């Protein structure tokens, strides 16, 4: 009963000093807004990454070029990783089941008067099997298409909708200035939190180089599947030796490429997300500390201002604990008001950021645990920094307090 009454008193007191209350909670607002904004963006990313890595399995390997900017005394030269490297791997490394080059770009495509920007993939015929994608209608392109440099394409379902293709297979679409004929439609993969895995067009690797320009062929990504899980390490080592040899790297020079296996891919992402989280954690820690001190400060002011009120309450029978709880609740309420404002700001900011990123970025998503965590921290801060002012209020001598001017 008294507990409920205390909430009423707390909110009446906060309302009476509305501006002061909001300014006081600025630290809390910033802290919570930062958490929510970052969490909302990172969560979307994380979903995207894990869903992309699922399905490809533990034999999946990626080879990427790596720039060594930190190499002392070395002029940064363009590191190349070409499909020739990939073909060498195919020929010389044991236990490689299949391998495909991959170049990706965002490309305007057209059909009649319909236009659409999509992801254009330049790959070879092994791509669907390497990446665990399947064709629903028609076929993927074949080695023959590649050899003959046929102008063929396989599209995702979103592309069909966007270009309004009634009879997709056999239709001719323009990729940039290049006309290609659709020979297949990929199985629908769905959106994984905003990333549309159906909004893509595949064309033969060589054809893609024609669209993107030959230089795109210097920076390809190689994607491959080892024959089985046990041979992944051997494949990785052999690729490393082969590419170092082909790239004529000195004994002590670092690799100019990365060979990433699935575990490492997850590690890399986890590491990046972990770093982001740690930085944000530090920012939030400082913001909450500042916010907490702000709350303590204003509560001390409030206790002094309301000394006489405390005296009155005590004279009519309020116990120490009644006064303590009253001011604690006020501190917590102050902190929580900051939390709510911060939550709304952070959510809005996250949504704004993801909306401003031009290509298809996963939308901001605030998980319940982040809300719970934020409010939990706010409550802790309120109690932690409110306890001193509140106990000061509770310990006031009623006679002195009543006499206070």
């Amino acid at each position: 009963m008294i507990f409920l009454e205390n909430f009423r008193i707390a909110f009446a007191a906060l309302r009476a000093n509305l501006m002061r209350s909001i300014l006081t909670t600025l630290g809390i607002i910033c802290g919570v807004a930062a958490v929510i904004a970052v969490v909302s963006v990172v969560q979307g990313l994380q979903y995207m990454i894990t869903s992309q890595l699922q399905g490809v399995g533990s034999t999946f390997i990626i080879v990427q070029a790596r720039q060594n900017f930190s190499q002392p005394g070395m002029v940064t030269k363009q590191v190349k990783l070409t499909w020739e490297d990939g073909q060498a791997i195919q020929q010389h490394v044991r236990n490689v089941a299949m391998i495909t080059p991959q170049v990706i770009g965002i490309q305007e495509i057209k059909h009649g008067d319909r236009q659409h920007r999509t992801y254009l993939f330049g790959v070879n015929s092994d791509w669907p099997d390497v990446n665990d994608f399947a064709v629903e209608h028609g076929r993927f392109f074949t080695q023959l298409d590649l050899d003959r440099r046929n102008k063929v394409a396989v599209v995702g379902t979103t592309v069909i909708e966007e270009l309004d293709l009634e009879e997709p297979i056999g239709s001719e679409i323009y990729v940039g200035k290049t006309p290609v004929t659709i020979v297949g439609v990929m199985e629908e993969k769905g959106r994984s939190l905003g990333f549309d895995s159906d909004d893509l067009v595949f064309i033969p690797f060589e054809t893609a180089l024609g669209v993107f320009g030959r230089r795109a062929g210097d920076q390809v990504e190689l994607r491959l599947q080892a024959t089985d899980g046990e041979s992944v390490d051997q494949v990785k080592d052999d690729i490393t030796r082969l590419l170092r040899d082909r790239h004529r790297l000195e004994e002590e020079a670092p690799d100019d490429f990365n060979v990433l296996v699935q575990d490492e891919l997850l590690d890399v992402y986890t590491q990046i997300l972990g770093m982001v989280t740690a930085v944000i954690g530090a920012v939030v820690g400082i913001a909450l500390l500042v916010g907490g001190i702000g709350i303590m400060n204003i509560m001390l002011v409030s206790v002094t201002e309301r000394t006489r009120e405390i005296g009155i309450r005590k004279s009519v029978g309020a116990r120490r604990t009644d006064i303590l709880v009253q001011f604690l609740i006020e501190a917590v309420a102050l902190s929580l008001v900051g939390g709510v404002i911060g939550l709304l700001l952070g959510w809005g900011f996250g949504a704004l950021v993801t909306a401003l990123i031009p290509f298809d970025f996963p939308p901001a998503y605030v998980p319940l645990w982040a809300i719970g965590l934020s409010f939990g921290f706010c409550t802790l801060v309120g109690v932690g920094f409110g306890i001193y002012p509140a106990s000061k209020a509770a310990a006031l001598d009623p006679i002195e307090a009543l006499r206070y001017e």
Partner: protein
Amino acid sequence: MDADLSSPLIELRGIRKTYVMGSQLVHALDGVDLDIGRGEYVAIMGASGSGKSTLMNLLGCLDTPTEGHYSLNGVQVEELNDEELARIRNREIGFVFQTFNLLSRTTALRNVELPLIYRGMPRRERLERARATLERVGLGDRVDHQPNELSGGQRQRVAIARALVTDPSLVLADEPTGNLDSATSVEIMELFDALHEQGNTVLLVTHEPDIAEHAERRIVLRDGQVLRDERNGEAA
């Protein structure tokens, strides 16, 4: 309280209150013995520094004596801890202050309700009682006014209602007319007279003889001791 109704409401025996001021000991009360019966109407008088404020704080259970025994309605007050003192203030005492001491930005009704909150009474019952008590002091039409919308006399009526709402065994008024003009003072004193006639025990602390006239009994303090204790109408 299963107090013996025939015994006095208040029994003070050998009460001393000593303060340390710097290196000096100050005896604000220096051996006070006093009995006050139920339904009495008493004025405590004395110059400033005579100890009347200290006595009132002790009687109001805001403070405990350094030495001596104080029994209020059968309870030995000097043995109580902080929490029990708060409880006895809530149950047994109704304070009326010179400066009213109402909560600002809080309606008359909410002010009067305050002691009942700390008693843990349900809200509906609280508001009902607070409203009835405000009507009793003649402010039935002012329940939703805040103190700054009320005149001095009305504020003191709110304060009196707050003191009465718990049905205390003792109404303690400290210079209740000190901040009021003489016409309003008369009204407020009439209210206290009426409370006494209704059977309340009323204790006024005042330095004004006119006000003390209203009481049936006058206790004069000097230097922390009882100088005179007389019935009004007896030789002054």
